[in-house]
């Protein structure tokens, strides 16, 4: 006879667990679902924020980025209100009030003027916006490509994987800055194209390899198999299960890409290879072509503001990335979790 007798099992009745007060009390409709999800997102953001603020360097760096963002916003406001375009335009302006250029800082030109008689502070502020646009575009392109390539290569494996990874090897083997120099000699590179090229090189290159190795560790999780048993197709698994779990790492590499893009711009502009109106790199380039870089600290206002901005903004993005790493990667957290 067949023996198992399920009614043999007696389970003590009682509450299972001690659930927190319900998030949704009634039968959830569409809007309540959306509300509940929004609340969840807010809660997980708060949780991440609590860890982030424990890193003093992270908070300081974030404050630096916010400061630069305020600088970027302030330029059009100043131009529209207190600054006369004929004097203060970062490219075409000329400080008639000074006889000699470059002239040192004074109350009308807090950071002095450049060799062509333009206001340095105005140049600095207007460049900030370009740097943000460049950095963020490059980062979005890089991470968009790298996340997709990484997830697809890891999920399908085989030929697709081999193709993408050999392409990545090829790009890593290319000397990046030299390639950009050649490209900028061949084409007129504006801010947008530069961002695109940096993004594509990063996205198909090293970042793709890093995100792919992370995607590989996600791909072998049992929940991927569970999704297949549920009936999920390839695109469902990639979009719903692999990519969302890659995003924290993607965010981290976005921060690092911003740093790389701003540096690349500075180098190319310094060499005079970019077709830009104004940037921190061009400011240093202008000082250099006038021979003022050799003048030591005498003409410091031509170099220090732009140089310091490059250093601070790049470090800030990098350090925010490092602080985010601690949020994203629990193994790095100090023993308080």
């Amino acid at each position: 006879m067949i023996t198992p007798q399920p009614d043999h099992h007696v389970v003590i009745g009682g509450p299972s667990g001690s659930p927190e007060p319900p998030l949704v009390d009634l039968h959830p409709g569409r809007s309540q679902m959306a509300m509940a999800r929004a609340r969840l997102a807010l809660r997980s953001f708060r949780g991440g924020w609590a860890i982030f603020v424990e890193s003093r360097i992270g908070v300081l760096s974030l404050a630096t980025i916010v400061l630069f963002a305020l600088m970027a916003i302030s330029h059009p406001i100043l131009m529209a209100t207190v600054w006369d375009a004929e004097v203060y335009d970062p490219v075409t302006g000329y400080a008639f009030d000074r006889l000699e250029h470059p002239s040192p800082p004074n109350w009308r030109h807090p950071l002095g003027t450049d060799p062509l008689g333009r206001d340095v502070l105005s140049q600095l502020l207007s460049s900030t916006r370009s740097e943000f646009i460049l950095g963020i575009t490059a980062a979005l392109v890089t991470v968009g490509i790298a996340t997709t390539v990484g997830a697809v290569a890891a999920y399908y494996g085989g030929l697709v994987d081999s193709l993408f990874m050999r392409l990545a090897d090829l790009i890593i083997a290319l000397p990046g800055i030299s390639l950009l120099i050649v490209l900028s000699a061949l084409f007129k590179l504006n801010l947008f194209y530069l961002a695109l090229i940096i993004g594509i090189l990063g996205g198909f290159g090293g970042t793709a390899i890093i995100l792919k190795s992370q995607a590989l560790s996600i791909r072998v999780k049992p929940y991927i198999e569970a999704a297949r048993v549920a009936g999920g197709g390839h695109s469902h698994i990639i979009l719903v299960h692999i990519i969302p779990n890659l995003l924290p790492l993607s965010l981290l590499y976005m921060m690092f890409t911003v740093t790389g893009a701003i540096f690349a711009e500075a180098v190319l502009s310094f060499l005079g290879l970019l077709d830009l109106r104004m940037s921190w790199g061009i400011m240093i380039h202008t000082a250099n072509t006038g021979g003022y870089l050799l003048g030591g600290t005498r003409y410091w206002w031509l170099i220090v503001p732009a140089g310091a901005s490059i250093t601070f903004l790049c470090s800030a993005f990098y350090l925010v990335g490092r602080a985010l790493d601690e949020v994203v990667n629990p193994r790095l957290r100090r023993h308080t979790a």
Partner: protein
Amino acid sequence: MQTPMAAPNQTDGGQDALVAVSGLTKRFPVLKSLFRQPSSFIHAVDDVSFALAPGESLGLVGESGCGKTTVGKLLVKLLEPTSGGIHFRFPSRDANGGSGEPVDASEIRSTDLRAFRRQAQMIFQDPYESMNPRRTIYDTIAEPLAVQGIGSMTNRVDRVTEILTRVGLTPPSSFLFRHPHELSGGQRQRVAIARALVIGPSFVVADEPTSMLDVSSRTGIMSLMQELAQQYGISYLYITHDLAVARYMCHRIAVMYLGKIVELAETEELLRNPLHPYTRALLSAVPVPDPRFRRDRPDILGDLTLPIDPPPRCRFYDRCPVATDFCEGNPHPPMEEQTPGHWVACYEA
């Protein structure tokens, strides 16, 4: 107590078997390379045959690496067999509820695969890793419905709410929008069961669903699975390393050793009257929660190996305490019915 239909014949599966497996074989290449043909294979599952009646629960018991999980994955088409056949005869979904047309697993193509997934589901071992940590409990349980486009959203919420109540996660509204890490292991395994059952399958592969749980939650999960099987008429292939758990969960038990089923019988018959020397060893190695009980010492030799290109003789020969010259010179013994319903693959049994 509900009596499952007569246990089907071990090999041909009978006419009304829900799942009939014959000669199922899966080999994994040992060295995979782009440029070379693999020369060695792990014979993970080797010529395995059994059948499962509707409503029956069959235990697949063996040590790690014996191929039991591979069998489970083959049956839900997470893996494709190297050779051998799997035939399903799912109950039809129309009003009269009789058996549907037989389905050959190897013929299921992408369009039929979704229909197949509604009938055959799987519960995974690890309640911590088998759920996407970034998705809510609602998302996890509703996934089969969502990817198959079943029901409107409000309808899915209803179904998820109902199944949460059924698996004992009440009130359901307090679980819908939690994340897996906020739940205990036992609660998560209840979610995993809900996910497998929300779509109404008739066959579920349960891969060690309680092995990572504490004793107190384990009993709850075991009795829940039994209740649900009775209520929804589900058949389990219950994969476990623990004979004691199989005793409570399964009508019949198949013991696997290195890719082969070596013994198959009704549960109490197998435990009281084990015929294969490996089954006997396995049984006597289980610790007994009774200090006065003195069990026999298992007389098995050596250590478990991997079935990489195994010699054609009996798989158990190297470790067998009763092996003879006959065992050495002959192929792996066939499954033979010693007493009605009790099958064993051993020349010396």
